[in-house]
């Protein structure tokens, strides 16, 4: 077929958001709206045991009584929760053993996204559990992992096959009634990932999941549960892209991490949901509850690069319950155009000798608003707790805002807390220096921004770090006047 001018025009129109395309796959979608029947239907559809159904219903009943939180520093039109379809699954869904069986159209989608399920990834040592509109359709490397006793599968599969494990841990870190969005997620979560690392096992590869929102008007409610048993280690990667849609799409995920004694979990996220266009139209609402629980000597490390979404409401937290446990939070949040981000972390020190580090870099450009909101809490029994927080904001242009809301609550005299925050713009002398050496302004800014975010980028696994750097550049394109 010849390449027509019309097609070229179309391509240019959609080029703004590179990954903005829509895959035409027959989907099995529920009617819009939410009530107990829908919750039961979701549960049935997924062939869940009875305890799961009642768990969902309990969450739904709590959710009905709850109000949307309004304390965050964001303005948006509230989603109409009755105007969302709560379940959508790609239709042709046999369990695949090899890639040849996968719907070619779907494979094509992944190719465009740069995800190759073939040799390349295998060589890179990445097992991919792909979530496409809520249902896990392809899982690779399962066998390799299985040899080590590692369970890495979709949460719905886990509910069926590892019922006891899920039942024991689900909702222990983020209870059903934790907050409005967590309750909603608990009631209607469609799928997500489940990961269990047995005692003393060091997971040999980076685990990663790619999320996509595909079906129009479908909320995505991911549920992730990672359990690292005593003395184990796992590094988990999560990255997302979404097609561009005019109406706002809702994403309310819940991630629970459990690090038992001496275990370590490293959880990295690159979030690049559709941020809305230059006029602030469209874009994804990202309301995420992420929380980790550290037992004795355990360590949880959150790293996030947030460049997408129209609204981000996200506070990956650590509960440092066990003695000597460590919590870390490294974050880069970039907002451009009309994006709004209210993100940060909570470090709850309960055990003795607990340590936490917070490094947060906010970059605001265009007409965006970027807030850091954090809590460091040292309880009265948390002897010798140590915290270091640093939040730096970079402002580009005069129409954006940077805000910091750090809460520090200390009830123990042996605690040592340091917090510092700065706000500034890119120095003219820095740009001048680069220009002088033949680096044009746009590149210079990217260079400086990368330098500004280096401390966080360094914490990302290799493959992600490269991708994240590119993302930063793309997100800030055209923000230089």
């Amino acid at each position: 077929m010849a390449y027509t001018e019309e097609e070229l025009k179309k391509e240019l129109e959609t080029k703004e958001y590179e990954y903005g395309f829509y895959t035409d796959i027959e989907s099995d979608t529920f009617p819009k709206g939410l009530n107990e029947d829908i919750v039961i239907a979701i549960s049935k559809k997924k062939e869940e045991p009875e305890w799961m159904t009642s768990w969902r219903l309990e969450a739904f009943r709590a959710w009905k009584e709850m109000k949307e939180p309004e304390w965050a520093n964001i303005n948006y039109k509230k989603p109409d929760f009755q105007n969302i379809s709560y379940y959508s699954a790609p239709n042709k869904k046999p369990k695949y053993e090899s890639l040849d069986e996968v719907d070619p159209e779907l494979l094509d989608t992944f190719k465009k996204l740069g995800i190759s399920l073939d040799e390349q990834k295998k060589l890179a040592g990445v097992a991919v559990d792909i979530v496409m509109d809520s249902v896990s359709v392809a899982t690779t490397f399962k066998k390799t992992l299985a040899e080590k006793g590692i369970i890495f599968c979709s949460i719905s599969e886990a509910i069926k096959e590892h019922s006891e494990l899920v039942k024991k841990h689900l909702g222990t870190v983020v209870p059903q009634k934790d907050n409005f969005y967590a309750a909603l997620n608990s009631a209607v979560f469609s799928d997500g990932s489940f990961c269990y690392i047995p005692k003393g096992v060091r997971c040999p590869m980076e685990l990663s999941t790619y999320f996509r929102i595909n079906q129009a008007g479908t909320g995505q409610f991911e549920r992730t549960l990672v359990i690292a048993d005593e003395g184990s280690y796992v590094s988990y990667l999560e990255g997302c892209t979404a097609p561009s849609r005019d109406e706002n799409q809702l994403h309310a995920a819940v991630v629970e991490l459990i690090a038992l004694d001496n275990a370590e979990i490293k959880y990295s996220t690159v979030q690049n949901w559709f941020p809305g266009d230059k006029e602030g139209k469209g874009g994804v609402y990202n309301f995420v509850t992420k929380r980790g629980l550290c037992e004795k000597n355990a360590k949880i490390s959150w790293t996030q690069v947030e460049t997408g979404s129209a609204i981000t409401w996200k506070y990956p937290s650590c509960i440092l319950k066990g003695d000597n446990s460590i919590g870390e939070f490294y974050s880069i949040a970039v907002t451009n155009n009309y994006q709004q981000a209210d993100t940060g972390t909570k470090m709850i020190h309960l055990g003795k000798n607990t340590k936490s580090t917070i490094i947060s870099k906010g970059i605001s450009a265009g007409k965006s608003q970027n807030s850091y909101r954090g809590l460091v809490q040292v309880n009265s029994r948390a002897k010798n707790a140590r915290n270091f927080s640093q939040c730096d904001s970079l402002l580009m242009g005069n129409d954006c805002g940077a805000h910091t809301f750090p809460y520090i609550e200390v009830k123990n005299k042996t605690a040592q807390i340091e917090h510092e925050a700065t706000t500034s713009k890119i120095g003219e002398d820095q740009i001048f220096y680069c220009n002088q050496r033949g680096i044009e302004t746009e590149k210079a800014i990217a260079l400086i921004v990368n330098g500004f975010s280096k401390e966080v980028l360094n914490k990302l696994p290799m493959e992600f770090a490269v991708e994240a750097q590119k993302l930063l550049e793309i997100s800030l394109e055209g923000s230089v006047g």
Partner: protein
Amino acid sequence: MDLKDKLVSSFLAFENNIDVDHPVHDIRSEAIKNFELKGFPNRKEEAWKYTSLNSIQKVDFSIFPKETNALEYKDVKRYFLHEIDTYKIVFIDGVYSSFLSETTHDGVDICLMSAALSKPMYKQIIDVYFNEVASKDESLTTLNTAFSKEGAYIYIPKNKMPKKPIEILHFATGNEAALLLQPRNLIIAEENAELQIIERHQSLTSNEVLTNCVTEIFAAKNAIIDYYKVQNDVKNASLIDNTYISQKSNSVVKVHTFSFGGKLTRNNLNYYQNGEYIDSTMKGVTILGEKQHVDHHTLVHHRQPNCESHQDYKGIYGEKSMGVFNGKIIVDKIAQKTNAFQQNNNILISDKATINTKPQLEIFADDVKCSHGCTIGQLDEEAMFYLQTRGIPKKEAAALLMYAFANNVLASVRIPELKMRINRLIANKLGVQLGFDL
């Protein structure tokens, strides 16, 4: 009847004793309506998250003292800065004491709010400034506005400077079981004027006292104001101190707050910069013990370019005390080249003490330098050891280190006698005799 209802219904009685035809009365009526609507703040409000007024509301406060006591100067001399000569505006149970006061109309006006509100010669100034910068919707401020009648009135005309510092003292004598005081101060410094003020609230008994004070300060071009708040009240006295400051170009306003006493102290310190090249400085030392509670809330609103603000708050918390610091800096879009610094350092010396701190930046301009730092820690063990090896007992060694910790703030007190007085208060509070002044 709860305190809110009592206050609202007392407003009618209050109206019988004042000139209801004065234009200020419209402001009062408006204010009581707002208070009736909002009531006392509760902990669900972000600004009151860490400070509860519930126990205060349970006390049956007298709103108008039935009679006033006279005080002998010798009995209260120690609360004055008697080492130096000062102007004094003294109130006993909310009523002006001409016997203890020393006011003036010689070139500058250092006198009473009641006079300013009633005499026609002040009407023009009252019309312009009264309730101009104070919040019209913060409930406790409007409560004060509704009952505003008495307090200090200070007006320094262009190019003038009073000969000596001004002391504002409020005594409560305890002739009521529980007393609510609501002083209202208005301080105006015209162009190039300069003045120093020392404010103190002191209860002389163990009866319950609650002071809800509002002070409005206006600094015109090039004016310089030094304001010292000494808060070392007895353990049944609570203070809610609301200060609103409006600054014009090139003015410098410094507020030092020394909080060592009282049951519950809440300081709301608000700066509004309405000109360029302004310097706003606020510093504080807080040393608490027992079950004391001090809550510092500061706000600096940078509304114009090229201004600066400096904040430095040090806190030492012992026993079961609780400290709160919330410093908010807002930089408007047009306020380019703003420099805003904020620092809050805390030492916890007891397991039961709590500190909650929340520095907050809201920035809408890009060419700014804003930073805030906050630390919580304890005395350096090595330093303690070093001092002890040199024969300094543990308690004194700890006190020395705490002095050093607070010294940054003390160093900027510009009245030497006041600095010495505060040093002594700190030594008292820490229970040591150092034998020298720092």
